[in-house]
């Protein structure tokens, strides 16, 4: 058994009100020093959770983190239940409240929920189990070491005594909280590693599960925003006389959600600080009336935005930008000097002495996150309290922003988490929550703010647009002797300089650049990795081909080098685990012998602490790829809940493939050119891979997340498979633009 320190004390235990007659309520609190992988999310977070055992035997386990589809509402309580030794069928799960005094790191982001909470959730269960056993030992006057706990029954074999958790809960609440407890040996897991269905499955399939959009109160006002028509403009004036004459419209006014002197938090992005708001008695009436509002907008001058804890303000540039110009600016920038981030050996010498050199460039466009549940929040702000209910990935960040903006204390701000109808990073940025709070404070009524799909898609923020140029050099024996990546984007560079193939090649150079913009962007599923993983792994497929090597063998040779004799320091991956997923997918896909008529491609990537290798099998049919299968080899350490973990990898793979094939958000003179699902193409059922087969590496390593890691390797495996079939490489996302034009050319030439 492994002993873990509990960091619990009597005071923190009692603070929550153990309430003897009501049973045992355990609260645990400790500090986790592990920072999130994504460096832009700085700092470290605590994590807390709690168990309630009622005297009637009901065991309620709270799930601390926002549920955005990653299924933590099932998997986090499973970890607690495992150590508690309760029967999973007897567990009720509830969404924990946001309480920064007790809970911390209540965030859905960075694929980090399970990784960051693993020890804490285990300790919570083990601590409660320990106290129940101690209570039984005292009651039965037997040594605690002789007591067994199985499926929620406490028993002592020799005396024949036994009790349910409910019967011991009250006594257990009086037991001294241990300073350390034993957690289980991993091989003894009975709940973890065994598939448990989504606890909200019955609610979701009957329409009863509550999402943010489903929050209604009796006297609330419906509200909608009229956002500016373009990036780069601000409100000059507006005429709402027609709207105000329409049935059910209460008012049209402006709010300044983010005043110039407001110190924004990490997730307070907003391209449009001042907004027109319309309120009314129903959603449909305000949707109709807002279209009649005539507003004048004028170009703004560059202005500065203050962020909390930053000495210098961030400058927002003026101008109406266009995708067309963005691409030419990126290409220009890729030819200029850039910031050197990592250099090993002497790359220029190696390139000049190489037998073969290959150089390729890649781009990817803006993407709209477009979760199906649009941005929305319910707010009821009174003189002394702000009650906010809805979908938010970063409730603890937004609690602070709202408190500052409304002039309230943190205790006065109560954010309640509903299920989130998709986020993909978009709902990390809670400006919509803050806007709802500002509206409610202004009109002194409860309000439900809903963005229409068009508002959601055109307001920003987007996945940044990126460009990358790669060079690789081979010697006469086809060994890769130099690798050069130079990459950037608008407004950020996607570079991870210490990732593969850094560490596997003697001469390595990584350079970075960025172009500023007034188009707001936001972390999008596997931020930056969603591009870098895809293009790096496409490029390496070409390098392997140039070297005359099988793409898996080529990578395994590189990992072998990194295992035996790594180059440089701070290589950000474990080469043996990387090689492991490739070997697994090679075996499971029967790599050497693809099915007749099928073209296949492979890729592997490490991000957000997990390793995924993908093989895509496809064939072309009338200019359209039919993806027959995606095979995934995955190493995320211990697989907490296999059926849900597999679901994440299946969805992440299809999502990556869908965006790389179809999705495109363009800007012209500051105006987003796509605004709804009729012109913004998301992958649909008929385009989706026919099957996704997921295989996990059997591992006892501390578990890591799966929301993000499958996304990028699926894209590269797709691109590499498309090359096998069409004989053409795909350098620019979305690939369907090239695929369609090629298909049309072929048809015309026949």
């Amino acid at each position: 058994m492994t002993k873990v320190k509990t960091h619990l004390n009597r005071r923190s235990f009692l603070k929550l009100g153990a309430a003897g007659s009501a049973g045992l309520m355990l609260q645990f609190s400790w500090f986790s020093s592990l920072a999130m992988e994504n460096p832009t999310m700085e700092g470290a977070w605590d994590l807390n959770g709690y168990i309630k055992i009622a005297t009637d035997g009901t065991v309620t386990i709270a799930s601390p983190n926002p549920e955005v589809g990653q299924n933590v509402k099932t998997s986090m309580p499973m970890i607690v239940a495992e150590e508690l030794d309760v029967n999973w069928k007897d567990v009720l799960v509830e969404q924990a409240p946001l309480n920064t005094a007790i809970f911390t790191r209540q965030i859905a982001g960075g694929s980090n929920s399970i990784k960051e909470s693993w020890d804490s959730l285990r300790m919570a269960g083990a601590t409660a189990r320990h106290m129940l056993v101690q209570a039984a030992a005292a009651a039965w006057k037997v040594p605690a070491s002789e007591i067994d706990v199985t499926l929620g029954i406490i028993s002592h074999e020799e005396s024949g005594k036994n009790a349910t958790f409910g019967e011991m809960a009250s006594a257990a609440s009086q037991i001294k909280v241990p300073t350390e407890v034993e957690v289980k040996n991993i091989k003894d897991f009975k709940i973890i590693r065994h598939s448990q269905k989504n606890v909200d499955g019955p609610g979701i399939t009957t329409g009863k599960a509550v999402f943010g959009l489903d929050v209604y109160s009796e006297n609330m006002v419906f509200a909608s925003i009229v956002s500016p028509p373009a990036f780069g403009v601000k409100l000059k004036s507006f005429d709402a006389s027609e709207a105000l004459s329409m049935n059910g419209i209460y008012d049209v006014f402006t709010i300044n959600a983010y005043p110039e002197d407001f110190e924004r938090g990490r997730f307070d992005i907003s391209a449009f600080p001042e907004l027109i708001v319309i309120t009314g008695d129903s959603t449909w009436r305000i949707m109709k009336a807002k279209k009649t509002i005539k507003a004048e907008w004028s170009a703004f001058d560059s202005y500065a935005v203050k962020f909390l804890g930053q000495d210098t303000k961030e400058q927002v540039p003026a101008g109406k930008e266009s995708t067309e110009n963005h691409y030419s600016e990126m290409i220009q920038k890729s030819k200029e000097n850039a910031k050197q981030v990592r250099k090993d050996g002497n790359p220029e010498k190696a390139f000049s002495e190489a037998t073969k050199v290959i150089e390729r460039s890649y781009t990817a466009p803006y993407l709209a996150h477009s979760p199906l549940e649009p941005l929305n929040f319910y707010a009821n702000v009174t003189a002394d309290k702000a009650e906010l209910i809805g979908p938010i990935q970063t409730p603890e960040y937004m609690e602070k922003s709202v408190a500052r903006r409304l002039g309230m204390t943190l205790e006065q701000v109560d954010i309640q988490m509903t299920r989130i109808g998709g986020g993909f990073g978009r709902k990390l940025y809670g400006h919509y929550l803050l806007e709802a709070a500002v509206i409610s404070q202004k009109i002194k009524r409860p309000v439900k703010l809903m963005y229409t799909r068009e508002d959601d898609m055109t307001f920003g923020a987007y996945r940044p647009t990126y460009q990358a140029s790669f060079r690789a050099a081979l010697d006469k024996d086809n060994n890769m002797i130099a690798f050069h990546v130079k990459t950037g984007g608008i407004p950020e560079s996607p570079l991870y300089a210490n990732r593969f193939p850094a560490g596997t090649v003697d001469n390595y150079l990584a350079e970075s650049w960025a172009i500023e913009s007034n188009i707001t962007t936001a972390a999008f599923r596997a931020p930056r990795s969603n591009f870098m993983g895809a293009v790096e792994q496409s490029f390496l497929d070409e390098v392997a081909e140039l070297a005359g090597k099988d793409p898996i063998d080529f990578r395994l040779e590189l990992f072998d080098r990194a295992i035996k004799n790594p180059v440089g320091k701070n290589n950000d991956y474990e080469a043996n685990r990387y090689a492991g997923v490739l070997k697994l997918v090679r075996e499971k896909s029967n790599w050497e012998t693809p099915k007749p008529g099928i073209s296949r491609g492979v890729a592997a990537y490490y991000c957000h602490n997990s390793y995924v290798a993908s093989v895509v099998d496809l064939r072309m049919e009338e200019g359209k790829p039919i993806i027959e299968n995606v095979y995934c080899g995955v190493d995320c350490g211990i697989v907490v809940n296999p059926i849900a973990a597999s679901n994440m990898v299946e969805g992440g793979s299809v999502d990556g493939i869908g965006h790389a094939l179809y999705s495109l958000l363009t800007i012209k003179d500051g105006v987003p050119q796509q605004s709804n699902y009729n012109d913004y193409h998301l992958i649909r059922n008929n385009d989706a891979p026919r099957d996704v087969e997921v295989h996990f590496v059997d591992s006892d390593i501390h578990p890591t997340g799966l929301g993000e890691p499958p996304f990028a390797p699926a894209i590269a495996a797709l691109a590499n498979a498309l090359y096998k079939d069409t004989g053409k490489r795909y350098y620019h996302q979305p690939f369907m633009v090239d695929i369609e034009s090629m298909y049309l050319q072929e048809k015309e030439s026949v």
Partner: protein
Amino acid sequence: MAVYSINVNGTTHQVDVDSDTPILWVLRDNLRLLGTKYGCGIAHCGVCTVHLDGEAIRSCAYPISAIENKKIVTIEGLSESGDHPVQKAWIEHDVPQCGYCQAGQIMTAASLLEQNSNPSDDEIRRAMNGNICRCATYTRINRAIKTAAKEM
């Protein structure tokens, strides 16, 4: 404004709304039947799917004035206790991720199986193509429909 009589899940309601109000917003804002979702407002994503006399329609783009005497069934009324074969198959395959689109997926699937109790893979994909799942659970959706078909 006008008073409309609307039969939802076997119960008749009188609602006083604008004649162009989509059924979606009558269900949500007036009747507080919240299982039917809003996603796009232009019948392009399928999250608002309900049955109108058994046929799957996009309630976000179907005005109440066009309803005549047809009966509406929403996800809340698909079965008494969540045990329609499609609902059961959804649980068996643990289909949902975020879950927001799933009521619409289930309503489209149930309508498909009413009309074709043994659809081919191709027929399933085509019938379900109007329902976006942003979490991309398509392979599980299609497997669940196959399972449900066996019970229909």
